[in-house]
């Protein structure tokens, strides 16, 4: 039987980490879009060398399970950063690097390899005629990109972005291995301290579900708003 008292306790206990989990997810989500856009642009514009690097990078990121990648980052990121700080003669002990940073880097990179595909597809879906029309009106390429192409591509990409956000939310829970506490981690912490595992997982599942419902609702709203404007 589920213990109601524990459920309620857990609910408020876990609720305290929801804001920071969502904030972390939003940070990673935005970074992944930025990196993903960069990758997509490199591929679209056929930048030599960089394109090959991006393809190799994507192959690696898409293939490596996140749990593995986080570990690899945990062990190697400090020495990578250490190498650079040493190179630039900065006085910074890279082994003090925060696990949150490591998690952000690892998850952003992994998710960005999926985002790149989404973004590429959505930009391809904007017809060439739109770009021609913008050019014919004297827009600079950047203006055309920002004012005409991006809004249309966004409509196309939005549902996928919604999915990606949920992937990020779930992915963060792996950060517990390197001490980052999110919804799932808090549930496990509480469970480990009071041994009520089932109760903690029920509450955690509902939290994730609730956040997801909210995200789906918001993207849906934003989507219909964008559609109504195009």
């Amino acid at each position, binding site marked *: 039987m589920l213990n109601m008292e524990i459920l309620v306790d857990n609910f408020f206990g876990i609720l305290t980490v929801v804001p920071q989990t969502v904030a972390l997810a939003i940070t990673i989500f935005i970074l992944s879009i930025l990196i993903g856009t960069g990758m997509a642009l490199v591929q679209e514009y056929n930048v030599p060398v960089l394109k090959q690097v991006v393809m190799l990078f994507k*192959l690696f990121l898409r293939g490596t399970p996140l*749990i593995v990648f986080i*570990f*690899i980052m945990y062990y*190697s990121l400090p020495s990578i950063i250490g190498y650079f700080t040493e190179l630039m003669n900065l006085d910074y002990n890279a082994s003090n690097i925060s696990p949150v940073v490591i998690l952000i880097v690892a998850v952003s990179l992994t998710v960005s390899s999926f985002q790149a595909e989404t973004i590429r597809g959505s930009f391809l879906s904007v017809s060439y005629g739109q770009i021609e029309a913008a050019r014919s009106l004297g827009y600079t390429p950047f203006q055309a990109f920002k004012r005409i192409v991006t809004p249309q591509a966004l409509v196309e990409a939005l549902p996928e972005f919604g999915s990606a956000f949920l992937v990020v939310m*779930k992915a963060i829970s792996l950060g517990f291995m390197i001490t980052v506490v999110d919804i*799932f981690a808090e549930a496990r912490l509480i469970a480990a301290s009071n041994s009520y595992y089932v109760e903690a997982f029920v509450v955690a*599942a509902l939290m994730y579900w609730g956040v997801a419902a909210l995200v789906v609702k918001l993207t849906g709203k934003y989507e219909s708003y964008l559609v109504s404007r195009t």
Partner: protein
Amino acid sequence: MITPSTWEIVSLLLDVAHITFIILLASAVLGLLLGAVLTMINVKNIPVLKQITVVISSFTRSVPIIIQLFIVYYALPPLLGNFGINVTSMSATVAAILALTLYHGGYLTEVLRAAYKAVEKGQHEAADSLGYTPTKKFFRIILPQTVPVALPGWGNALIHLIHDTSLVFALGVADIMGRAELIAASSFGMNQVQVFLIVAAIYIAVTFLSDGMVRLFEKKTQKFKLDSGLKAKRVA
């Protein structure tokens, strides 16, 4: 102390590769079927059932896989027991397949639904106006146009599935990741990075194959171009 060499680790991991593959293959196939059924219910707007598909899809997409694995393996048997269905002997592997099937199916529902919706109304009307039965219309006209749209999303879903099989170890399934953990633990984690890099290499190979397969399907199914006839005016 004995720490295994790289090649020993590789061969130890490949020894259990078939377990990962069976779980992967079974949940990929069953998940696709489940996704197709859920999508069908969803687009046909069957009352009650449709709400259930929405719940399944949103739940499986948003809740961490590990919780889903626990629900299927630990919560489902006593639950079904209350209804007189005895599945207490369900093995961890079967539970893993079941959980991943639900997860993959739920994820694919979104992909398939979007692809189905991408087929224009005119295509339905044209087939209807010619007297196609719904089944004939679906298999001859709608499905062939849905598949190419769904393929990239399906490819992504497969990659997510491949990644998530690495979590079934939590239930005690001896898959690649499970054995990797055991190998690392046996030498007190001193060779963990080495073991994980090898795991990464194996998974990269699998995703590479998966992506290649999807690309092959894309080539096969997309001989026609899916832009609208109106756009074609400019081309001609």
